[in-house]
Structures are given as structure tokens and as C-alpha cells.
């Protein structure tokens, strides 16, 4: 799994590969260390193959971390399979998907 983090006006995290049990741990560890000063964090999933519930858990953890700080999390460019996962779990309702 490739993770690309770009700081600027917004924090853009681009994911490539799978966001699953193993990679979500890897991503979680990476984000733990990352300073997030931008008001908006964009998770770009354009090149993400799929996301499992472990990945969803990570996203939920991230949102719970950002919300108290008044920061926003947006999910961009979901492929159909990922959209289906978001739909069936209701994550499409609690996360901002664009």
C-alpha cells in the first residue's frame, strides 16, 4: 500500500492499494506521527482498490480525533466497490464523501 501525504491549504492523503487489516495498522501508525495543522483533511481514494471494515475503523478513529479540534475530514474519489462498502455500513452518512 502506498501512502502519499501532501501538506498545503488542505492536508491531502492519497492512498493506493488496499486498505485492510494489515495496511490500516500501517496507515494508522503513519497518521499518528503526522502533524495535522490544516483545517481540512482530504482522503483521496482514487487509486484505492478496496477498503475493509478495518479501514473504516481507521477512518472513524481519524474523524473522532479531528472533530474535537474543529477539523473536517473529506473522502474523495471512491470507486464502486468502496462506495458499496460505505453504503452498506452507513459510513456514507457519517463521513463526508465527495
Amino acid at each position, binding site marked *: 500500500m502506498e501512502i502519499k501525504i501532501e501538506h498545503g491549504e488542505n492536508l491531502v492523503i492519497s492512498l493506493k492499494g488496499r486498505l485492510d487489516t494489515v495496511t490500516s495498522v500501517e496507515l494508522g501508525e503513519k497518521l499518528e506521527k503526522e502533524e495535522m495543522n490544516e483545517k481540512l483533511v482530504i482522503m483521496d481514494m482514487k487509486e484505492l482498490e478496496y477498503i475493509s471494515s478495518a479501514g473504516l475503523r481507521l477512518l472513524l478513529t481519524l474523524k473522532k480525533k479531528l472533530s474535537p479540534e474543529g477539523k473536517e475530514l473529506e473522502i474523495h474519489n471512491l470507486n464502486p466497490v468502496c462506495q458499496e462498502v460505505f453504503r452498506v*455500513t452507513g459510513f456514507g452518512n457519517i463521513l463526508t464523501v465527495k
Partner: protein
Amino acid sequence: MKKRFPILAKIGILGALTSIIAAAISIVVTYNSAAKRSEEALISRVNNCLDSIYFQYYTSDEANELIVNLVTIKEKTEEVYEKVKDIHQSDYATFSEYEAAMKSKAPWFYPDPTSMIGSQEFLAFRQQYIQLNSLLTNAQFSSGAVSVFTAYFMEEKSSYVFMADSRYNVVQKGEFYFLVGSSYTLKSTDVLVEGDEESYDTFSLNGYLTRKVEVLTNDGEYVATFFIQYTYDAIRAENQRMLIRDALILFGTSLAIIGIIILGSYLMFTRNIKKVTDAASKAKERLSKNEEFEAVSISIKSNDEMRTLGESFNALEQQLVDYIAIVKKEAMEKERVNAELGVASKIQLDSLPSTSYYDEKVRVESLIRTAKEVGGDFYDYFYVGKKFVVIMSDVSGKGIPAALFMMKAKELLKSNLIKGSSLKEAATEVNEALVVNNKENLFVTSFIGMIDFEEGKLSYVNAGHEKPYLISNGEVIRLDGNSNFVLGGVEGIDFVEESVSFKKGDKLFMFTDGLNEAINSKEEEFTYENIQKTLEDTTGASLKDIISTMTKRLDEFVGEQEVFDDVTMMVVEPGVSLHLSYDKKDYSIIEDAVDKFNESFDDLSIEVKSKVGIILDELMNNLISYEKREDLVIDLDFILLDETLRILIRDNGDDYDVLANHKEKYANKGDDLEVGGFGIAIVKDLAKEVTYEYLAGHSVMKIIMDLK
């Protein structure tokens, strides 16, 4: 049944018709011989008359008295004749003048009619005369004659001299006397009856039909002649009466003959015919009712054609009985043979492997249609170690011989290959074995292929068989390698083995000539072109669809035409399946499993692969996270079947149905969500079907993914 017309009735009618015709002919003939008939009638009457005359003289004495009488009268008449022979009535103008002339010649003979008294001589003579006259009158009366008169024949004059007449009673009329002594000479024109010219017995006289009968003494001396006269009307009436009588006699006789014929016919023919017809109708009835049929012997005693018929009938009936028995036996035999053929056909078809076969390595679909109950086509497939053998064959000929040869060829091929022979060796050995004792000169064409999955290669020997088609990367190619001679033909053939690349995604379509040579009503063949086109149209289809499309097009092509040859086809492709086993309780195995799956099922869509990735991640994560035992072993199987992907996840952990025990969780805006608990919901959504069961100490999760 139509009413029969008995032979007896026919004979009767025939007899009646014959008799009627005969009677008619007789009547005509009789009419034609009327003249002869007249004489017969006359003779009959004369006899009556003579009977009447002799009746009064039925003793010889009395007859003698008549003769004496006649002789006396004759002598007196001779005397008178001598006196009056020159006096002719035609010479006198009136009868009185003639009478006077006669009286003057023989005064003693012609007395005064008023006094009736003459001389003693006359009185004696007169008495005799009255006696004769009364005799003649009686005779006339009783015989119905017009007159009966007597004359005597005078040889020197060839004339008859009149003696007495029944019509002229001597007491009442005197004038007849003047006829006594008158003579008459018979003229040739008086002769009436043909053939009587010699005797002049019958003739026409004074317009009457006349018959003369001579009276002789006992010594044969001529005395006098009686003349008996009839009118023609009387004779005609007599004739008619006799005609009717004869016709009646004829008719009666005919009836009697008919009766005799009918009775005779019955006794001689019909009775016997009836025996035959009775026996025949009885036989017919029993046959039609399908009853047990037994021969009934008829006995005919008459020594004629009827006996021949009866004997023939008996013989035929016996033959029929025998024949029925033979037919019944043959029908049973045929039934038995058919039943055995059915069994043979079943054994033959049972000897073939299933038409469908799927495992993780290989997938096979086939179809066999036999034209007769047992045919010569066969297909076969089996593993030899890790390699998979496919065989498509066609035995020359059809029916039982072909079937037996086929079984032999099939078993020989299989046993040789299973013991480890190469295709070339196997073909050679089978050929040698089949050539031995092959007196019927049967042979088999065979395509023998061996798939090596690890090397992605198909090795094959084609022994004179139809070249199969290889379907690879959307293209259909005829497997145009070396075609060897057939198996079982001749000894010592050096079979050539060849090979071609055969990998996952490739398919091999084999068939027998029953497919390409199938003909329609216009005698056109199905041809390789149609096979090729059908395969090109179905490159992306499942094996079942390829076979069913080919069959459908074949059926449409052939139509109502009778199928003469077996049709067999088989399509094979390497199975796309994967087996993985992990005994490490580590999350890294999930990544490994997903990677290996993606590698093996490269041609599946990204969407399906992603879904499988998610499912594996969720379920394996659950196992690794929650299963307590440390020696956890997880086995994974991935099998492509038809339009589905089947995933089996087996572990040696506790019996825990995660599907039943998970809580439905769905995130909504504003929820204060706990982390986790969405995995099973995702799996259920992405899979077409998910089931759990605990089997033989293992938890088994079965997932079916739809590939469409």
C-alpha cells in the same frame, strides 16, 4: 359380416333355370313336331275307340261273332255292290233320283222306309246290320270321334266299299243304305301323315282326320276295315292337353331333379363345405379374440376334392398353429433380445464417465447421442497422476459389434495409459492388441489428449480422428497436427505424438464425424464451417453453453431428418481453482491469500477481486482476532464453477456461527460509534450467498460470488 349366399341355393337356382329353359325348349320342339303329335293323339283315340269296340266283344266267342257278322254284312254288301256299282250319285241331279236308281238295281236291299218290313233274308241281314251299327255308334260316342264306319277293301279295284256308318242309324234313317255298296278309292292327296305313305293308315278324308284299322280273322284273313274319324279341332285340343300334360310332367320331373340335386349337393358337397367353413370361422373367432389356438381336425369321408380341401385345411391349420407358436416364441425372443440390447446400451453408457465433470483442475462438458440403441462412439477422461487424459473415439460400424469393439478399445486405452505409458506407447500397444483376432476388420479412430496443468501443455496422438478445435484468446484454431492411421487397422504403426500450449482460459472441443457429417433433408452436411462458427460465437460462454448452442444449431439444421450416425462432442478446459493452507496465526496470511488469489484468478474483473479481497480480510481477520487456539489452521479453496466463484474457508477452531451472532450495525449521522462490528454486514452484502456449518471438527464458511 356380409350375408353369404349358400352354394346349395345357387345350385338350386341354377337347376331351376336349367329346367325352365329345358321345358321351354321342349315346348317349342313339341310344337314344331305337331304333326307327329297329331298322329300320336289319333292313335291314342283310335285305341280308345277300338277298346270301345272290343269291349262289347271281350270274349273270343263274341269277337268271332263280330267277325261272322262282318263277313255276313260284307257278303251282302258285295252283292249290292255288284248291282249298283255303275250308279254314281254325281250322275244324278237329286238324291231322290239316285235313290230310285239304287232301288231299281237291288230292290230286296232297299225296303220301303215307312213300313220297315222286307223279306226274311233282309230281316236277318237287317238284324246283323243294326248290331254292327249300334257297335259303331257306341264306339263313336265313347271315343269322341266324328264318325266310325266300316268298309272292305276290294283288291281288284283298289277301292273300299262302304259297309256301315255310326252316323246313319238304320232304324231312323233309311238313306244310308244308298251309301252301302258305294266305293271309294284313296287318293294320294288323302295321305296326311308324313312317313305313312306305305300303310296309308292315317289320312284326311272328307275334311276329317281319319285312321283305318283292319279287322282280321284268327287265321289272319282280311275281313274288313274300320275307319275312325275325328275333327281337326278335337285333335288340336287333344294335342294341347297332351302338351300341357307333357309340360307338367317335364316341370315335375325338373322339380324332382332339382330336389335330388339339392339333396345330393348337400350330402356330397355342402355338408362337407360346412365342416370346413365352420372350422374356419371358429378358428377366425378364436384368433380375433386372441384366445389360445388349437388345431381342430375335420373329417371328410367323401372321396373327392372336398376331402383334399379338408385335408389341406387340416394341414394348413396345423401349420398355422405351429406358426403361431413360432411367432410367439420369436416375439418373446425378440423382446428378450431388445431388453438385452437396452441393458447393453445402458452398460455402454454407464461405462462412459459423467457428461459433466468439474474439479479444481479441470472442467469437462460432453454429449453423446446414439443413432441406434448401442453405438460405436465413446468419450473418456481420467487422471493419470497429475495429468488429465481426454479421449474422443469413433468405432467403424454400428450396433452390438461396434459396441463390443468400443468397450475393448476404451478399456485398453485406459489401462495402458493408467499404467504409465506415454501417449505414443499407449496408441501403439492398443493398436497391436486390437489388430489381433480382429476378424470383423473393425477399427477405431481416436483422439487421445493429455493435459499437463503445471506446464500448460496438451500432448496428443490423433489416430485418424476428426481434428479437434482449440479455443484460445478468443480465437478458434483447428488442431491441425499429424493424423496417424486408425487403431486396429494394421500392425506396426509408428504413432506420432505432438503437443500444443494449453493454459488456463484455453478450451479444447472434440467431436465425432456424426456432427460435421450430420445431414438435413436436402442431404447437405453440417460441415466444419458451422462447427467453427458456433465455437467462434461462444468463445466467452460456459462449457455447458457451448455444448447446448452446438446441439441447438445441429438440431435446427437437421430438422425432421432421421439421424443415421452417433453424435458425440466434448469440450474441456483447465479448471481455475486455488487451494491455500495456513497454520500461522498471523495477519500477514491475509495479504498472502489475497495476493495468491489475484494471481490465480487474474482474468476476473477488478470489482470481483476487490470484493473477494474485502471478504477474505473480514473473515480471516475475525478468525485470527477471536479464535483462542494457537494451532489454528485455515484452509482456503477457490473454485470457478459456471458463472460463480465458490470460496471455502475451513478452520479447526470452535463452532461459532459468526453470521448468526453478529449484531446488525448501521452507522447514522450523529451516532457515537464504537469501533468495529461492520465486517459481517459487508461480507453479506458483497457475496451472493454466505453459509456457515460445522463439519467433522471444522468450521466451514461457504461463500458464493456471482460473476455476471
